[in-house]
């Protein structure tokens, strides 16, 4: 019997040590990827250029290598390869339209696409008046698509010789000069609606650090001088309402006007503003270098949102909100969305390692 016992013990020990398995028990533990690995097609040797969010389920956009669309928050996505044909030109994205200005000789041509950049049409008429071109080249500085579909084109002639603002009607193939400012350096512009808008410019003699404001209340027919802002460089303007606007700078300084730009007061937003969007007359979102801030009183006071998801800080270079609650924040390699005004977030695209495999 003693022999039997030893044989049994030896057999068990041999079984234990000879039959090694594969992997580990932990490999059987379930885990779900935070983002669909298929979104790698958008950022692997590619980059997101623009995202359109319909405010519900549909997210579409343009990447350098093609266009994409999802109706289920990237649980599945359609990707159509198509090379982005716009290089370093001035470009803007509107509702169903992309417009870009391409330098051509002493001026530029305006091209637009209504199929996410697959095909482009060229604005047929001449935008810049001959009298300006006769004295020097005019380059586009910034474009914007108005609510009625018209295109605002901010231009600069020479280094401080003249700032011009044109309104281009693509449908009618007409353009009209709405602002001319001599001895000015174009910085930025923004319209709250079809009538109320502002242009930021500098004077060449004053150098950087001082910005001046022009204001129109009638769609550009007449312009009035606004405030002069000191100690600022590379300012941007964001229109909120016909009376409220923000002027912000890369160093984090933010000024707010509640009287249409006549006077400004400094406000604390909570970080450097990367992009800004007024969703309604009171509600404004500001995408910060690190996070997001929200104002419910037209920019007078701000709350920095606790914008984290799965340990990642919500960050990006652009934002697109529809209404108070639904919006996206994105950059070249990431995309976040919220359905509750930024209280919680979902990460839809992110450069995790497995996305690149």
């Amino acid at each position, binding site marked *: *019997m003693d022999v039997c016992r030893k044989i*049994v*013990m030896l057999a*068990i*020990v041999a*079984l*234990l*040590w000879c*039959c*090694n*398995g*594969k*992997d*580990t*028990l*932990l*490999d*059987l*533990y*379930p*885990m*779900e*990827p*935070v*983002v669909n690995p298929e979104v790698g097609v958008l950022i692997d040797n590619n980059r997101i250029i623009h995202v359109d969010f319909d405010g519900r389920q549909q997210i579409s956009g343009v990447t350098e290598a093609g266009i994409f669309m999802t109706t289920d928050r990237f649980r599945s996505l359609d990707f159509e390869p198509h090379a982005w044909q716009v290089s370093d030109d001035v470009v803007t994205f509107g509702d169903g339209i992309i417009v870009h200005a391409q330098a051509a000789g002493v001026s530029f041509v305006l091209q637009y696409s209504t199929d996410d950049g697959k095909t482009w049409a060229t604005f047929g008429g001449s935008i810049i008046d001959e009298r300006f071109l006769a004295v020097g080249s005019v380059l586009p500085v910034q474009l914007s698509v108005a609510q009625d579909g018209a295109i605002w084109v901010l231009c600069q002639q020479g280094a401080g010789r003249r700032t011009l603002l044109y309104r281009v009607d693509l449908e009618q193939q007409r353009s009209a000069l709405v602002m001319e400012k001599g001895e000015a350096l174009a910085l930025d512009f923004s319209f709250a609606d079809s009538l109320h808008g502002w242009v930021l410019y500098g004077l060449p003699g004053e150098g950087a650090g001082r910005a001046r404001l022009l204001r129109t209340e009638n769609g550009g027919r007449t312009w009035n001088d606004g405030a002069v802002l000191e100690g600022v460089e590379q300012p941007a303007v964001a229109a909120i309402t016909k009376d409220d606007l923000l002027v912000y700078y890369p160093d984090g300084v933010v000024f707010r006007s509640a009287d249409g730009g006549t006077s400004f007061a400094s406000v604390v937003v909570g970080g450097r503003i990367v992009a800004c969007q007024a969703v309604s007359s009171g509600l404004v979102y500001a995408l910060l270098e690190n996070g997001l801030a929200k104002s419910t009183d037209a920019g007078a006071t701000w709350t920095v949102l606790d914008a984290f998801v*799965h*340990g990642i800080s919500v960050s990006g270079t652009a934002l697109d909100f529809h209404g108070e609650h639904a919006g996206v924040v994105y950059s070249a390699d990431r995309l976040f969305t919220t359905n509750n005004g930024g209280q919680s977030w979902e990460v839809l695209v*992110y450069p*995790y*390692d*497995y*996305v690149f495999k």
Partner: protein
Amino acid sequence: MSWCKTMLAGWVALTLSVSHLSAQEALEKFPVFLDAEVGASRFASSAMHSVFPVGANLTAGPVFAFGDQWRLRARPQVGITFFSNRIDEWVTEQLLIVKLGGQVSYDAFYLGQVTFFPYVAADFNWVANFDAEEVGEGDDTNVTYSDSYLKGTGFSQEVGVRVQAREWYIKLGYEFFNPRLKVRQNIIDDDLTSGYLTPPNHRFNFNSFNITVGAMLSL
């Protein structure tokens, strides 16, 4: 922890009450034996036995008899089941299950010298999954154990048949065991950093086929 205490107290109470009853029965000559058995376990699911092809089990407990001709047997029991998976030359993954429970068998019939006991068993189990790493060489080899990657508790049930000839027996059984195991928090955190969502716990299929050889020893 309260679970563990409750289980332990229940098991002690069961053992005492069974031993008390058996003591009365023992007056009618049936002795108390000690069952000691050792055997092998193989998980039923292919996923599990691809990790741990086979394990060893060891169980012991006193046997008390009741009923007509003492054909009903009750056995409070303790046991361990141990699975091992060599990951590399130095590291071995281990799965340890400690059991506390009881088994009831019935002397159903016999053929010659061989008696057949169908049995059912129920145990409370403590499960831990960890690594053992050998450090050093030769006589200086030491084994260090990692913290548990997975751990948890759960009830198991086993059904089978015990075939006994004199004091020796063989048991063949199937164990139903689906414990919910918790994963270590830092694993959840590391997975999240890598872009994976890991649930804090998960129910595993530890159902297994067991074969054991044992002896019924006189006390």
